[in-house]
């Protein structure tokens, strides 16, 4: 199977583009994507600081290579489902940044009309299946989506993202077992940033991440998520295998979170030293790594980069402005969409509120 961690090629030096079979145009697209995600998250961080966004908010800064590399390697009709660190994966799947930002602001223009928030982005139209807040909750759901694909003899696949902490949940193990016995078309993707909040994975597991699917005979692999070219190539190949009936796959994507776990957690401190974080932000920034490759290949220059970045910043600013101008949900939204079938017999609500229709 394709790609373990990419190694620096020996002389004669093969370009990383050739090595992964990725044309420079595609590499430029991946860079543009990652810049969009980075600037979006920075804007969200800014908006949070001034009180426009509330509650839990988990940024994806540092992990953009996973979103771009894995999701851009899929077909549009493939499904993506993830945990609560979901903003950029939604954008990668094709959700408008305006809608993601408006959701963060709790506004009607949001993906869920302001009723989901940071952790619950959903967009059925582009097969972005959420946005799930219970660690590993999305893993059985992903398996069910894959069950549907097989049930209907379709050839889409599911990419199920999760954090490293999810692999210690029972639901993860139950779902992998079922995906394996029924040969379901799903790729289980661990965004292994090495920490579940403040708990280092090595403190809660004696086995390596890549071993975690072996009890279920699901082929496992490892890729460096900070190297978006390697990640893209890896998922392109895996997607083909899964689409062709190869059954599920498990991928340990090595990555690193450049910010705190959520907005209330400092970037470094009690559970990871400053030096560790600096080491990663300095040497492992997926945007800088691809930028340097493109510079080296002569496919991009400083001006080109700045133009690309200016566009990304502009898009994030527009998202902010859209969200800020978007109305807050009206009171009627409170009771909407609790039930799909509401006009039947009997009473469904028991809060005794005045707005309730039987009063």
């Amino acid at each position, binding site marked *: 199977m394709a790609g373990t961690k990419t190694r620096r090629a020996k002389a004669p030096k093969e370009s990383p583009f050739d090595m992964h079979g990725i044309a420079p145009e595609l590499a430029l697209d991946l860079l543009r994507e990652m810049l969009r995600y980075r600037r979006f998250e920075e804007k969200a961080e800014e908006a949070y600081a001034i009180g426009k966004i509330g509650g839990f908010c988990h940024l994806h800064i540092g992990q953009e290579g996973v979103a771009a590399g894995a999701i851009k390697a899929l077909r549009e009709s493939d*499904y993506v*489902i993830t945990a609560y660190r979901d903003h950029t994966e939604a954008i990668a799947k094709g959700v408008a940044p305006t809608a993601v930002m408006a959701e963060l602001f709790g506004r009607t223009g949001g*993906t*869920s*009309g302001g*009723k*989901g928030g940071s952790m*619950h982005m*959903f*967009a*059925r139209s582009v097969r972005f*299946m*959420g*946005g*799930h*807040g*219970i660690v590993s*909750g999305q*893993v*059985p*759901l*992903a*398996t*069910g*989506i*894959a*069950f*549907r*694909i097989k*049930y209907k003899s379709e050839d889409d696949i599911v990419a199920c993202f999760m954090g490293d902490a999810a692999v210690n949940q*029972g*639901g993860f*193990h*139950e*779902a992998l*077992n*079922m995906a394996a*016995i029924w040969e379901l078309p799903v790729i289980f993707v661990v965004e292994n940033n090495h920490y579940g909040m403040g708990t280092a994975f090595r403190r809660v597991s004696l086995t390596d991440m890549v071993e975690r699917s072996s009890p279920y005979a699901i082929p496992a692999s490892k890729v460096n998520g900070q190297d978006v070219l390697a990640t893209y190539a890896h998922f392109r190949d895996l997607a083909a295998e899964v689409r062709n009936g190869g059954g599920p796959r498990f991928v340990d994507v090595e990555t690193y979170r450049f910010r705190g776990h959520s907005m209330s957690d400092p970037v470094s401190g009690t559970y990871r030293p400053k030096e560790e974080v600096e080491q990663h932000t300095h040497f492992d920034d997926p945007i800088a790594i691809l930028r340097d490759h493109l510079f080296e290949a002569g496919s991009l220059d400083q001006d080109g980069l700045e133009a690309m970045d200016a566009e990304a910043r502009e898009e994030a600013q527009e998202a902010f402005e859209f969200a800020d101008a978007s109305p807050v949900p009206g009171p009627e939204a409170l009771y*909407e*969409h*609790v*039930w*799909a*079938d509401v006009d*039947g*017999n*009997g*009473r*469904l*609500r*028991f809060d*005794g509120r005045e707005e309730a229709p*039987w009063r």
Partner: protein
Amino acid sequence: MAVMTYRDALNAALREEMARDPDVFLMGEEVAEYDGAYKVSKGLLAEFGDHRVVDSPISELGFGGLCVGAAMAGLRPVVEFMTFNFAFLALDQVINSAAKLLYMSNGQFPIPIVFRGPTGAALQLSAQHSQACETYYVHAPGVKVVTPATPADAKGLLKAAIRDNDPVAFMEGELLYNFKGEVPEDDDFVIPLGVADLKHEGDDVTIVTHGKMVHVALQAANKLSTEGIGADVVDLRSIRPLDVDAILRSVQKTNRAVYLEEGWAYVGVGAQIVATIQEEAFDYLDAPVLRVTQADVPMPYAKNLEMMAKPSADRVVEACNKVLYREAR
């Protein structure tokens, strides 16, 4: 009309709905090759194949969640829990996923799923296998809870539950599977959710109940009638949606009510019913509304203790006498 068991009525509902809609499938432990732990799915594997009648591993959280995911993606799963005692393992996916996905996605993801299986105690199965689980499900907005007491209700309500676009916890009774009754054979015999059924009529006292306890209520009503007391037995059939009008209609007639349920009293279904009656029919009441429930203990094994723990027709008669301020004979 045909006379059939509750089990066969459920089986007929499953068969008809699976034949009607290719997106309906059944998954659970022992549903296929074993024909169902209680034989509710008997013959379905042969008729529909292992594609649609799927034996799962013993992974309640996993297959419960898998089926919610399948419903997100447009299928209409029927999940069989061998009993609801084992479904606690899946409760996260019911409450955190199935019940909330429609709301959290602002209407994008309806979850048309049925979680079904027996709830409540059978005989001498002890604490972990003898629990009435309705309260856990009915507590959360987003889940409907259905509790059929008779073969006809079992068939008509299961068909409605499968056609419903919301998650439905469909709670059967292990001791009811062999119970026989008349059942319409019509493929379109569907009983809408949220419509209670008056299973016995009388003017003096109202017994409100659901599920298997309907039969205990009927025994009590028969006893009372030999003493010249007429009891309404209001079978809720579904706890959410709740036919509040049917409860109020009866209470307005009798001015006295007793709630009977198999589960524990504390924050049980009856607590809600009593609250609703006092909020909306206070002026009609001539006595406090009483509840007859399981003793507030885990179910003991010893036969005599189990008998003491369970609600009984005698206790219901006693409660009715109390609300009638009547000396027992």
